[in-house]
C-alpha cells in the first residue's frame, strides 16, 4: 500500500486556527491603516498646496532603496564567501558584533554619525550625488554587516557532503558560488532583499538627524515630504493636514508594494543570473585562469586566502565598532532618570518581543507543516503570498504616526490600559511579519523527506515540532528574538505618538538629538545603556554560535540558520 505523500497533521479545527493566524495579522494590519481607507474618497481636486514634487521624492526613495539593497545583499554575500574560510574561534565568538549596527536602530546610528568630530567637506553645499552617496554609505554601514553575518553563518552550516562533492570534482570558485553557495543562501537572500529594501525605502532618521533634510537641499525621503505636507497644511486646518497625509499614503501604497515585490522576487532572480555568470564557462574563457587561481586552492594559495579572510573579518568588526568611539566625545554616566527610563522601556519591549517571537515560531512551524512542499523554498509563488503580511511596511512612517494618532483618539477614552494594549498590538502587527518570514526562511531547511518519513510513521505533532524544529533551530529562534526585541525597541513612528503612556528610550533619544530641546550629553547617556544591552545580546548569541562549532554540529549539517 503506497505511503501517503503528506499526512495531515491538523484536524479541521486546527486548520481553522492555522489559517486564522495570518488572517488575524492581516486583518489587524488593515484595521491599523483603516484611517487611510477612510479618506480614500477625498478628491484632492485642483488644490495642490505644496504637493508638487511628490513623485520625485518617491522615485528618489525607490532609487536609494534599490541601490542600498543591491550593495548590501550582494556585497554581503560575496564578502561572506570571502570570509567563508575564516573558521577561527575568535571570529565565531564575536561574529554577533556584526549585528550591532542593525540592532542599535536608525536613531542611534544617526546620532553616532552626527557626532563624528569632522564633516566631509564635500557635504557643505549638498551636491546631489556626493550627498546621496554619503547617506548610502551610512545605510550600507548599518545593514551590510547584517548580511555578511547571516550569509557567513549560512555558509558555515553548508552540509559537509555537498562540500566534499565539490572538492572531489575540483570545482572552481565560480562554480562553487554558482552551484553551491548561492543556491544554499538563496532563501536567506530573498528575505534579506525584502528586509533591507523596506528599511532603505522607509529611511527617515539619517537625513533628518545628520543633514536636517529639506527640499532646499534635495535630501528628502517620502516621510520627510509627508511631514512637510502636514506642517504646511496644519495652520489651515489640522484635520485637512492629517487627511492630506493619509491620502498621499494611500496614493503611494500600490507603487510601494510593487517596488517591494520587485525587490523580493526580482533581486533573487538577479542573484541567480549573477552567480550563474560566475559559474559559466564563458567567464572562464573571458578571464584566463592565472596559474591555478581558478583551481581548488593549493596549499600556498590557501594560506594567502586565509590571511585575506582574517584581515577582512577583523576589518569588518573594526569598521562596525569604530563609530562607537564618538560617544567618548559626549560621554556622561546615565543619571537615575535615564536608568529608570531604560528599565521601563525594557519592561515595555520585552513582553511584546517574547509574544511576537513565540507567535512567529508557532506560525512558522504550522505553516511548514501545512505546506511542506510549497515552503521548501522562498520563490516567486510563495513570496507574493508572504508579501501580503507586509502591508504595514508599505505605509511611510508619517502615515503610521497619523494612523496611531487616529486610533489614539478612539482608544484614549478607554484609559491607559487600553492605550498600552493598543501599542502592544501595533508593535505586533509591525514586527510580526518580519520575524515570521525569517522563521519560515530558516524552516526551509527541514528536508521534505524527513517530514514525509514522520508522516509515514504517524509521529505526533508535538514530537515533530520538538525534534524537527525547536531543537534544530534554537540558534535561529534566539536570533529571531534578538531582532524582534531590537525592532520593538527602536520603533518610533507610532511609539512617539503614545510617548506619555509608553516608555521608550528611542523616542527620548530623538528628542535629545533634534529640535531646540537637543542635549547631546543626555543623548549620549541614553545611548550607552542601549549599546551595552545590544553588545551583551550579540556576545551571548555569538557564544552560542561558537558552541555550535564546538559540538561539531557544522560537520553534521545541523544547527541551521
Amino acid at each position, binding site marked *: 500500500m503506497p505511503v501517503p505523500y503528506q499526512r495531515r497533521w491538523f484536524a479541521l479545527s486546527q486548520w481553522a486556527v492555522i489559517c486564522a493566524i495570518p488572517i488575524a495579522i492581516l486583518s489587524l494590519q488593515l484595521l491599523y491603516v483603516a484611517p487611510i481607507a477612510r479618506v480614500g474618497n477625498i478628491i484632492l481636486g485642483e*488644490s495642490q*498646496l*505644496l504637493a508638487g514634487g511628490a513623485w520625485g521624492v518617491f522615485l528618489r526613495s525607490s532609487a536609494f532603496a534599490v541601490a542600498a539593497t543591491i550593495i548590501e545583499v550582494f556585497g554581503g554575500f560575496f564578502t561572506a564567501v570571502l570570509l567563508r574560510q575564516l573558521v577561527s574561534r575568535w571570529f565565531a565568538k564575536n561574529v554577533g558584533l556584526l549585528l550591532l549596527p542593525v540592532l542599535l536602530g536608525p536613531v542611534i546610528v544617526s546620532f553616532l554619525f552626527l*557626532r*563624528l*568630530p*569632522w*564633516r566631509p*567637506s564635500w*557635504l*557643505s*553645499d*549638498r551636491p546631489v550625488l556626493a550627498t546621496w552617496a554619503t547617506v548610502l554609505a551610512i545605510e550600507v554601514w548599518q545593514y551590510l554587516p547584517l548580511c555578511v553575518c547571516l550569509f557567513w553563518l549560512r555558509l558555515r552550516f553548508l552540509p559537509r557532503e555537498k562540500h566534499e562533492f565539490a572538492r572531489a570534482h575540483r570545482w572552481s570558485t565560480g562554480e562553487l558560488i554558482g552551484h553551491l553557495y548561492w543556491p544554499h543562501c538563496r532563501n536567506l537572500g530573498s528575505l534579506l532583499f525584502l528586509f533591507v529594501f523596506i528599511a532603505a525605502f522607509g529611511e527617515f532618521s539619517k537625513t533628518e538627524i*545628520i*543633514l*536636517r*533634510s*529639506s*527640499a*532646499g*537641499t534635495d535630501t528628502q525621503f517620502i516621510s520627510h515630504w509627508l*511631514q*512637510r505636507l*502636514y*506642517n*504646511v*497644511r*496644519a*495652520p*489651515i*486646518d*489640522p*484635520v*485637512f*493636514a*492629517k487627511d492630506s497625509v493619509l491620502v498621499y499614503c494611500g496614493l503611494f501604497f500600490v507603487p510601494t508594494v510593487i517596488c517591494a515585490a520587485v525587490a523580493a522576487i526580482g533581486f533573487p532572480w538577479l542573484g541567480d543570473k549573477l552567480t550563474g555568470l560566475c559559474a559559466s564557462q564563458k567567464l572562464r574563457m573571458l578571464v584566463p585562469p592565472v596559474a591555478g587561481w581558478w583551481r581548488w586552492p593549493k596549499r600556498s594559495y590557501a594560506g594567502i586566502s586565509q590571511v585575506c579572510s582574517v584581515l577582512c573579518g577583523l576589518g569588518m568588526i573594526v569598521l562596525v565598532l569604530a563609530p562607537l568611539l564618538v560617544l567618548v566625545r559626549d560621554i556622561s554616566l546615565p543619571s537615575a532618570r535615564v536608568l529608570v527610563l531604560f528599565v521601563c522601556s525594557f519592561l515595555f519591549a520585552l513582553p511584546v518581543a517574547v509574544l511576537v517571537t513565540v507567535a512567529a515560531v508557532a506560525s512558522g512551524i504550522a505553516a511548514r507543516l501545512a505546506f511542506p512542499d510549497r515552503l521548501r523554498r522562498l520563490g516567486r509563488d510563495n513570496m507574493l503570498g508572504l508579501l501580503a503580511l507586509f502591508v504595514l511596511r508599505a505605509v511611510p512612517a508619517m502615515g503610521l*504616526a*497619523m494612523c496611531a*494618532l*487616529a486610533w*489614539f*483618539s478612539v482608544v*484614549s*477614552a478607554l484609559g491607559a490600559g487600553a492605550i498600552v494594549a493598543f501599542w502592544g498590538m501595533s508593535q505586533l502587527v509591525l514586527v510580526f511579519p518580519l520575524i515570521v518570514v525569517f522563521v519560515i526562511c530558516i524552516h526551509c531547511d527541514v528536508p521534505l523527506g524527513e517530514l514525509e518519513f514522520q508522516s509515514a510513521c504517524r509521529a505526533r505533532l508535538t514530537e515533530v515540532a520538538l525534534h524537527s524544529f525547536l531543537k534544530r533551530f534554537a540558534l535561529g529562534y534566539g536570533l529571531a528574538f534578538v531582532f524582534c526585541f531590537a525592532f520593538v525597541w527602536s520603533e518610533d513612528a507610532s511609539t*512617539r*505618538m503614545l*510617548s*506619555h503612556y509608553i516608555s521608550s528610550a528611542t523616542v527620548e533619544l*530623538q*528628542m535629545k538629538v*533634534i*529640535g*531646540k*530641546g*537637543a*542635549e*547631546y550629553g543626555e543623548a549620549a547617556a541614553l545611548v550607552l545603556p542601549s549599546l551595552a544591552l545590544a553588545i551583551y545580546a550579540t556576545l551571548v548569541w555569538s557564544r552560542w554560535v561558537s558552541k555550535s562549532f564546538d559540538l561539531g554540529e557544522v560537520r553534521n549539517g545541523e544547527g541551521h540558520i
Partner: protein
Amino acid sequence: MTTEPSAGRTFPAKPVMVLAAAAVVVLAIYLGLGGCKPRITVLGEDIPSTHAIEQLAKQYEAQPDANVRIRVVKDAYETMVQKANTDLSAGTGVYDIILSYNTALSSYTRNRYVFTFDETKELMGRDAFPFEGDLFEPTWKEVGWYWIDSKQKPVAIPFSANTMLLCYNKELFGDKAKQDAYQAEYGRPLQPPTDWDEFLDIAEFFTNPEEGTFGLCLQGSSYFIYYEWANFAFGQGGGVMKKNWGWQSDENTPLLLTTQPTIDATEFYISLEKYNVKGGASDDYDYLSTDAIRQRERMTKRDVAMCIMWSDVAFGLVENINSSDIFGFAVIPGDKSMLAGGSYYINRKSKHPVKSIEFIISQLSLENQVTAMKRGLCSPLRSAYEDPGVLEEVPYAAALKESLDRGVYMLEAGPDSDAIIVILSDMLQRMWREGGDVAGALEEVERDIEAKRREIYRQISQ
C-alpha cells in the same frame, strides 16, 4: 458508595485575604497620595521653558489649596503639534493646556478649539487677571491675539516672550590687540555692532582662518535659516508682508519680497557666507544642518566672534557660571527686534478648565516668573526683568528686555505661515548652495507664495 472528602480542595481563604488586604493598603496609599485629585495634563515642546514650567508645576501641586495633580508632557516640536492637533480636532480632551506658538493661533481660534481670553475671565468670574497690565503688550499681541468676530482680541495668554539676540564672544572683543587693530582700521572702538554696517565690518575683521577665528556662526537648516534671515530682512527695512502682526494677514495683504530693501537685505545675508565658520578636518560644523542648538554648541569653541541666537537657547550657553564671562548679549543691529514666543492654550474640551486657569494664573505670578527666568524661561512679564536676581544671574536679561520693548512682527503666523516659511527656507538654502540672482529668485518666490496664499484662503473660506 462513599465519596472521599475533597482533601486539598478547600477554599484558599488565607491567600485571598492577604491579597485583599494588600489591595486595600495600596488603595489607601494611592488615595492618600492624592489619587482622587483632578489631574491637569500640560503638553509642550521639550525646551528649557517647558522644563522651567514643569518644575514650577511640582511646587504648585505641593500647595495645600491647589488640590490638583499636574503632569507635563514634553515632546519634540513636530510630535507636540501633531498630538495637540489630533486631540483638539477629535475633541478628546486629553491635554488640558497646550504650550504652543503663534502659528497655532489661526487654526485653534477659527475652529474654536480653545477658550478665548474673555471666556477664561468669564469662567473665573473675573474682569481682569493680575498679570494683564504687566505683560509685554507687543509680545502678547504677537503671540496671543487673533481675529474674533472680525475684531482683534486676545485669545491665549503668553507663557514665553522670545526674540533673537546678538551673542558675541567677550574674549575676542576684549582682546587688547584686537581692539587696537580694529580702532586703527575702522576708526571706531570695537564693541557690539549697533547697525548692519558695523556688523559686516566686525564679521570681516574677525574672519581669519589662519588664526583660526571666524566672524559669524549662521544657522542654515530649514526653518532656522528663515528665522535668522528675517532679522536681516526686517531689520534693514524690508520684510515679507506689510502688516503689524504675524497673524494679521489675509488674501489681500501685500507682499514685500521684491522691494529693494528686501532684495538688498537678502544679498547682504548671502554675502555673509565668507565670514561664516568653515567646517574642516577637526570641525563638524555644517551650515545647512545647523539649527539653534548646533549653533550654540559651535559657539562654545570660542573662535567665533558673533552670532544671532534665539533667546530661549541662550540659557543653555550660560548655564554654567564660566560661560557668562565668555559670552555677552546685545540687541541685534538696527532699531528693531523680533517678537516671538508661545502661549497657554486652554483646551475647550478640558475636563478641568477652571483648575487649568488657576494653574496658569499661579505660573504668571512675579515670584514664579523670576524663578522660571533663572531656569531658562523668557518671561512675558515686564516686572520680572527688574528683579535684581534675574539681572545678576541671567546675562541676557537686559538685552532680552530691550529687544522685547522694541520688538516688531518678523515671523509669519497666519494660516499661510508654514507655506511661506517652507518656500523661503528652500529658496535661501538654494541661493546658498548654488548662488544666482537674488532679485530673480525673490520674484519667483513671491509669485509662488501669492498662488499658495490664494489657494489657502480659498480653502478657508469654503
